[in-house]
């Protein structure tokens, strides 16, 4: 008799609730990394350093959430780094140059960012341009536009409270920017796990034709996902502007690769249909902790590049080792 598996145990339920299945390898990797750094450096294991790390991953973390959606439906978005820059420049232009108050400038900057994703989505669904190419083109276009706003120069002169939001640790703990990131994490996790719209992303990523026949509007879903991903990149741009208290069109170059790496390290499959935000958070933390640790260890920048490459490979290959040893 081909018996069927035993009752799902508690551990499984917990991991699954945090949508960490498929990301236990990276989770172990993250813990090992932290242990190593705690032993190897004096300064790693401290509240202040952890808060620094949280600060440092804000931008990547928010972009990686959007990227998780895109990769879940089997797509990819190479434009997020440029979209981040565009959103920053629109914000700077509207607020500083044109004198529009923040409550008007921020939504418009987000809108400008979201538009990029909507266009990419339409190119992908209606014109059958592969996501890689559509977003590669948008990457070039958004970067060009971001540069054209000020002819390549930076903008400074935001209202003082804007930068303070990224600096003051409310309750000695959370800056406004980190709080925004945590809110994004929570909403995205709940959405993907518990909303039928979220589940539909898995169906679309698993097999778009099956999803369509099951009544999912695959085109609309795809366009919305790219729009959301771009809007999140725009949000990341606004937080980055707050952090730097200035905006410049050369921000965010190659951030898309970090975001994709974080998502995949976190166990979301590039072929779509499996993964989740829980894993992505671990992926983001691995990258953030690694960068922080390498700096604390004063590793030469060139060696850092090699180490980061090795860790990315190890983190992803770890799943395979785990599978094999079973």
């Amino acid at each position, binding site marked *: 008799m081909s018996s069927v598996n035993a009752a799902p145990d508690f551990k499984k339920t917990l991991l699954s609730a945090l949508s960490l299945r498929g990301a236990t390898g990276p989770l172990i990797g993250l813990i090992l990394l932290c242990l190593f750094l705690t032993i190897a450096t004096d300064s790693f294991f401290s509240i202040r350093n952890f808060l620094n790390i949280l600060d440092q991953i804000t931008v990547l973390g928010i972009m990686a959430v959007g990227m998780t959606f895109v990769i879940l439906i089997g797509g990819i978005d190479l434009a997020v780094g440029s979209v981040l820059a565009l959103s920053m420049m629109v914000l700077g232009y509207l607020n500083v140059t044109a004198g529009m108050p923040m409550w008007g400038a921020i939504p418009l900057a987000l809108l400008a960012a979201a538009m990029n994703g909507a266009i990419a989505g339409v190119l992908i669904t209606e014109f059958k341009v592969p996501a890689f190419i559509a977003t590669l083109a948008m990457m070039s276009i958004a970067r060009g536009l971001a540069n054209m706003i000020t002819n390549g120069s930076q903008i400074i002169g935001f209202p003082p409270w804007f930068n303070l939001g990224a600096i003051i640790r409310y309750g000695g703990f959370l800056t406004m920017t980190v709080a925004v990131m945590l809110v994004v994490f929570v909403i995205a996790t709940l959405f993907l796990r518990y909303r039928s719209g979220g589940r539909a992303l898995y169906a679309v990523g698993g097999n778009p034709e099956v999803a369509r026949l099951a009544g999912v509007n695959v085109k609309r879903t795809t366009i919305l996902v790219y729009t959301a991903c771009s809007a999140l990149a725009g949000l990341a741009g606004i937080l980055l502007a707050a952090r730097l208290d200035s905006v410049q069109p050369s*921000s965010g170059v190659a951030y898309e690769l970090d975001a994709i790496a974080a998502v995949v390290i976190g166990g979301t499959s590039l072929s779509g249909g499996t993964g989740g935000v829980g894993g992505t958070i671990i992926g983001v933390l691995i990258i953030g902790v690694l960068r922080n640790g390498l700096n604390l260890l004063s590793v030469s920048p060139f060696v850092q590049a090699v180490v980061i490459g090795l860790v990315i490979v190890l983190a992803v290959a770890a799943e395979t080792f785990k599978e094999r040893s079973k």
Partner: protein
Amino acid sequence: GEVKKIGLAVPNLQADFFNQIKLGVEGYAGKLGIEVIVVDAKNDTATQVSQVQDLMTQGIDAFIYIPAGAAAAAVPTRLARAAGIPVINVDREPDGEPGDTVIYGENIVSAYQVCDHIIKKAGGKGKMVIIHGQKGTTPEVQRFEGCKRAIDENPGVELVAQQWSQQWSPDEGFQIAQNMLQANPDVTIIFGQADGLAMGAAKAVQGAGLEDKVIVGGYDGDGAALESLVKCDTPFIVTATQSTQAMGVLAVNSAIAVGHGASVPARQIPNAVLTTCADAAKFVEKHP
């Protein structure tokens, strides 16, 4: 207080200019027994802010800050101020958030000298092109300003084309120059705003078989550029050698001085030195 550990934030170590400053700082600090921690932002401002946070975590006593990207972020300076340590800016300083001193290579006068040199060499007349660095950056803007002054002084010189590179790199210089020579075959003077651009352009000139007609000027005094000038076998004949090692030494000395409560000038501006085939050899020996 006493300066035992210096944090050095560099925008991009792949640029020889920054690499030389780093070597200057490390060499001099090494002699004084001061530890130096270097972080490389790979041209990304946000990365640099994170790196500066990590420098603070490591308890540095002074901070040498070379801002990354087109914008100079103010946040690193604020972080250092919050930690109560000296901030020495090199190359650039953030608007509205000056450090204790800023040390930067003079751009306008030196660029004027380079362009003046190549224009004179060409007989004070002819068609000229400029290959700019990354658009919008301070050196790009100032080197153009200086060079433009030399052009304006020579009515016989006509600026027929300008193009911007993204990364100041030789392959960009090559490609841009090749296309410029295509569009304007009678060009005789080329100014590349960095040595990489100029050397790439010189190769394009050779490729087009125009090495007898065209001369190229550069800027920075990179190691490889100086070596090439020593040989003097290409159209690339002049550059402005920045006193990078001196800047490094100056930065360390300023850090120590500020640490002890001494006052330093708000601006320290070592000149770049016009370098031709004739005097390149001594700079290869010892970079200023």
